[in-house]
């Protein structure tokens, strides 16, 4: 395996040229030009280490987990549970019993809605979210409200794209049964100062779920230090595979929750008189899990930890500062979301050039960005925009790629502006 990141010997800052060689896709051409992949908030790319870990598992050790006594089943189980332990350590959970493998952030939030919320909530109860949320942290709660008669409350945001803390605090009441909040906004990049929000919820005894899909890849997350009750994230945004994600839940809460899907692996004993559910975390993992996905996620965590989350955050912040400075010089460009604390995401519009046209023109230059509503239609509505263009950076991006983005934006202005 070519799994040793080339940057291992780097001290202080990352060796980006070496890191880029770890990512095979970064070598490809798009429409005759080198790819500049600036759509990392939608999904990141994968290093050899992740691809190789998954191939190696399929080539040498695949069998079903938690079942057989034969060698391959034991190896698969060890790799799968090893990945769970890596996740536990990565986010500093107390126990691997608190790490539930799911399909992604969306499934994690749906699990909490259906298993935690549905049996508990009723008319008069309130779920509090913010105006910044991704649809994945809105729609599961709307569905739960339809099912239980509970009400969804929405904390407003400011013109800079930050959640209005005072308004949020004012919405907390004895009726509030759960707070569900983004840790980092996918549409704007705002880092929400969640400590403050969690502390406020605590004073009302309200449990807090954090949507960490955009946070885990870019900053060090410690669920014990955060003191949150649930934390959800996806593998594919952190250099891992698609189809695998994690729900962290406080053990006492998870223990008190019923399973949400039934099937194999989540039981200890089944008879037609009585079925005994399995213990944590297996109670929430019905059926054969995404074994290769979990192993790939574990390899992604190893990769990120080798680079160092602090150095990743520093490198991405530097790209953000550079992009802000370069983009600000483009006439007619307007930033959407100007919070002081931001992940490396830049959302913007350009006068007279629709984001969708930008997307096509940039693609022609080999520059991949996201254009549209970013699965956060309420955010677009708040700013009175149908769509924005969004460039989102990862540690493997370079200033030269941002320069190419800027050049392509000038081309777009000349063509359509």
């Amino acid at each position, binding site marked *: 395996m070519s799994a040793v990141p080339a940057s291992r010997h780097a001290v202080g800052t990352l060796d980006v040229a070496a890191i880029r060689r770890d990512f095979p896709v970064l070598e490809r051409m798009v429409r005759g030009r080198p790819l500049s992949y600036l759509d990392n908030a939608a999904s990141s790319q994968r290093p050899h280490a992740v691809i190789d870990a998954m191939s190696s598992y399929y080539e040498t050790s695949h069998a079903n987990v938690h079942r057989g006594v034969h060698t391959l089943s034991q190896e698969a189980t060890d790799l799968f549970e090893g990945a769970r332990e890596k996740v536990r350590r990565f986010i500093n959970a107390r126990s691997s019993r608190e790490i539930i493998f799911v399909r992604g952030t969306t499934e994690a939030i749906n699990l909490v809605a259906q298993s935690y919320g549905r049996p508990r909530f009723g008319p008069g109860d309130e779920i509090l979210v913010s105006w910044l949320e991704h649809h994945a942290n809105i729609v599961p709660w709307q569905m739960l409200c339809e099912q239980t008669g509970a009400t969804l409350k929405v904390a407003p945001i400011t013109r800079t794209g930050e959640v209005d803390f005072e308004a949020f605090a004012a919405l907390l009441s004895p009726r509030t049964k759960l707070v569900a909040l983004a840790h980092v906004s996918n549409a704007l990049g705002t880092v929400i100062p969640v400590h403050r929000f969690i502390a406020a919820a605590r004073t009302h005894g309200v449990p807090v779920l954090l949507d960490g899909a955009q946070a885990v890849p870019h900053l060090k997350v410690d669920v014990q230090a955060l003191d949150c009750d649930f934390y959800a994230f996806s593998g594919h945004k952190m250099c891992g595979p698609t189809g695998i994600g994690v729900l962290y839940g406080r053990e006492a809460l998870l223990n008190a929750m019923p399973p949400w899907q039934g099937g194999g692996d989540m039981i200890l004993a089944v008879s037609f008189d009585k079925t005994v559910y399995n213990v944590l975390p297996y109670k929430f993992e019905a059926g054969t899990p995404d074994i290769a996905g979990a192993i790939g996620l574990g390899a992604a965590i190893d990769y990120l930890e080798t680079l160092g989350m602090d150095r990743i955050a520093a490198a991405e912040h530097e790209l953000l500062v550079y992009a802000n400075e370069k983009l600000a010089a483009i006439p007619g460009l307007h930033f959407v979301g100007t919070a002081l604390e931001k992940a490396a995401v830049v959302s913007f519009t350009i006068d007279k050039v629709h984001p969708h046209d930008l997307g096509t023109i940039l693609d022609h230059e080999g520059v991949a960005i996201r254009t549209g509503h970013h699965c956060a239609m309420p955010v677009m509505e708040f700013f009175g925009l*149908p769509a924005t263009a969004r460039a989102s950076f990862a540690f493997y991006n370079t200033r030269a790629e941002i320069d190419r983005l800027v050049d392509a934006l000038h081309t777009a202005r000349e063509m359509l502006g």
Partner: protein
Amino acid sequence: MDLKDLYRDVIVDHNRHPRNFREIPDADRRADGFNPLCGDKLTVYVKLDGDRIADVSFNGSGCAISVASASLLTESVKGKSVAEAEGLFSQMHQLLTRDDAAVDVPGLGKLAALSGVREFPARVKCASLCWHTLDAALHSQDQVSTE
């Protein structure tokens, strides 16, 4: 494939200066079109004189392709019968999605400028939204979505 195949001069011009970009307050028919993927939203208004499209207009917001396509649509169907407009819709559908061998390209006039869209599959819905919306208006539906 060149970007200029997509953003031809006619399209850039109609995006910058859309024709018939207005509401018809006493329209006989109107329908809203929406492309949730990119947020294009437009309303098509039709004033009928018997079977003839006496006036047609649109407003809303969208990308260059959707605005130019709607602008070109209003120019090309004004004065035509409903059946002729439907015939153009079917021709446009073919032009945007298939090899244009079966399409009478010269007969489409300026609409033929949209033929480059075919090479950009992600943008076909932008160009066809106004046509679906016109079709909905002519058939008295209120709303159409290209998703």
